[in-house]
């Protein structure tokens, strides 16, 4: 079952084609891995899906609904959350406040009430417990270490209970034990029905964690399948190492 489908997405920056007719389909309720050499367009694809950049042409659909070029807040409303390669949190707010930002409220009057409402606080602490940052709730987020900020970002993304979470290089700059912790959290959420799409370079991480792996190369989809299959695919190896013996050294 496809949760997010992109069809023939094109995106260029001047002369550079970041996405050259990219079509792929991400499996619902699975942990999808998105890999590919540098410059293959992975982050651009994320940016286009989540509305931080607009596609030149092509389509993005969420469970059949067209969300092409929807703005980031609309994308979020559809239930898609994302993290960034360089962690983006709110450095001047406390950890707790960071999480509360993502708590959604409807209506004008509700906005006027205090941000620290009981119901939301329960959920916020629940989310912080989940990632292991509960004790740091009153600390200013900018004071946290890099790994802790990554967890914080992960935390507030889950606050609004998205059905799909896009993670952009969650393993970047993170030590093994924290990485295990993150993998556990991903699996735990996945078992509750959250779909993941993870861009990563750390092959071990991807192969261990993901149910379904998609490979990008030069702005379009190369292949996809279960981890072992993709890992053994010679085309994938070629994409990473260059065109191989044909190019000449």
């Amino acid at each position: 079952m496809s949760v997010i489908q992109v069809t023939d997405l094109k995106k260029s920056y001047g002369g550079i084609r970041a996405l050259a007719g990219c079509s792929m389909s991400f499996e619902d309720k699975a942990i999808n891995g998105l890999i590919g050499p540098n410059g293959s367009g992975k982050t651009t694809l994320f940016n286009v899906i989540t509305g931080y950049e607009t596609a030149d042409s092509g389509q993005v659909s969420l469970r059949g609904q067209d969300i092409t070029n929807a703005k980031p807040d609309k994308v979020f409303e559809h239930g898609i959350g994302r993290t960034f390669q360089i962690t983006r949190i709110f450095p001047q707010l406390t950890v707790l406040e960071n999480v509360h930002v993502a708590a959604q409220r409807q209506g004008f009057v509700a906005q006027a009430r205090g941000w620290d409402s009981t119901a939301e606080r329960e959920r916020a602490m629940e989310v912080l417990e989940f990632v292991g940052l509960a004790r740091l709730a009153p600390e200013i987020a900018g004071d946290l270490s890099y790994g802790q900020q990554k967890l914080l970002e992960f935390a507030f993304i889950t606050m609004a209970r998205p059905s799909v979470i896009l993670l952009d290089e969650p393993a970047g700059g993170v030590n093994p034990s924290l990485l295990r912790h993150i993998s556990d959290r991903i699996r735990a959420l996945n078992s509750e029905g959250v779909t993941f799409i993870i861009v990563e370079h750390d092959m071990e991480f991807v192969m261990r964690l993901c149910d379904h792996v998609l490979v990008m190369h030069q702005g379009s989809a190369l292949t996809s399948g279960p981890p072992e299959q993709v890992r053994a695919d010679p085309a994938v190896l070629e994409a990473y190492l260059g065109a191989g013996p044909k190019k000449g050294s």
Partner: protein
Amino acid sequence: MTTTEIAPAGAAAPEHVPYRPPRPLRYGATAGLLALLIAFPLVFPNPTVTSIGVFTMIYLIAAIGWNMFSGYSGYISIGHAAYYGIGQYTVALITIHAHLPAGWGLFGLLPVAGLVAALASIPIGFLLLRVRKHTFIVLTIAVMFIFQLLAFNLTTITNGSGGLTLPFPTWTGDFFNMPFYYVGLLAAVVAGAVAWWIRRSKYGLGLFAIRDDEERARGLGIKVTRTKLIAYAASAFFVGIAGGLYAPFVGSVYPQFAFDPTFDLAIAVLVFVGGIGTLSGPVLGALVLIPLQQYFYLQFGNANLYLIAYGVLFILILRLLPGGIVPGVTSAWRSRLVARARARQELAGAGGTGPEGAGPPGGAGPKDSGPKDTRPGAGQKDRA
């Protein structure tokens, strides 16, 4: 690569040092300050002194109002004099054309002045808030000058450079300044209350998120344009009220003093000095700098020295303490408390030999990185 560890659930939690003084202290200080301000003209009834007091109240209202947008959203406006002037002209024009008796009713016009300024700010804000922050800053000044030009040129309405004269209030003599002072103080308290309320509301949290990372905030569902616009209108409202108080107090309205870039400079400097983005920063800045400014103006009468002094002060603050005095002092104080807490913990043997490492639990405790600047929920004294 950084080595980060999350301390396992059982490890001793680092003692959290609060970012602000305890609530009783904050509330007490605010009440005390309010009492002082109420008593002030009664203790110092000299008209020269109370006149300084009135100007201080005017700038205080404007500073709190300015800060609730520029400080809370990070969009620095150096053109809010537009709304100051609109407030002045609103009160002047209504008073003159409606032939209002120059009595206490004059103060009823203050909310009207604020409202007119706020209404004017909405289309302006809508246009201006679409651009990036540095373009925004520049545009605010352009808008201010448009209003100044209009004031000079729409002579049938504004009497151009001839200015407008308001009828004098019915009370005079030594008592003259008192009503202005107390009405101003009341307006300042209202402004402060609104600023405080914004800060603790969900709306305000969205505003601060925008200040930290606008796109990120948008991506988490915050209605960015609407949020910024509301703050912009609210700040225009209060700056308009400040203008509306200024006009009848001074008795006349001229384009170059209504739409005055020096006003913008003064507001920006005093809020920056006090602590931009904080609740008490504008209060500190206004209460300290405006009396000084007025005093020097009375003593030396030279507007240039005041320009030079403000300019130099601004440069110094931007260079040395851009967060302002209130955050600077509070974080220095907090650093001491944190150091003491850490020493206490080490004495108590909280540091283990596990992955946390010696000393403060590795990675699990926040790094103490020195003076921080503005943050909404931390590190400042509240007014209320």
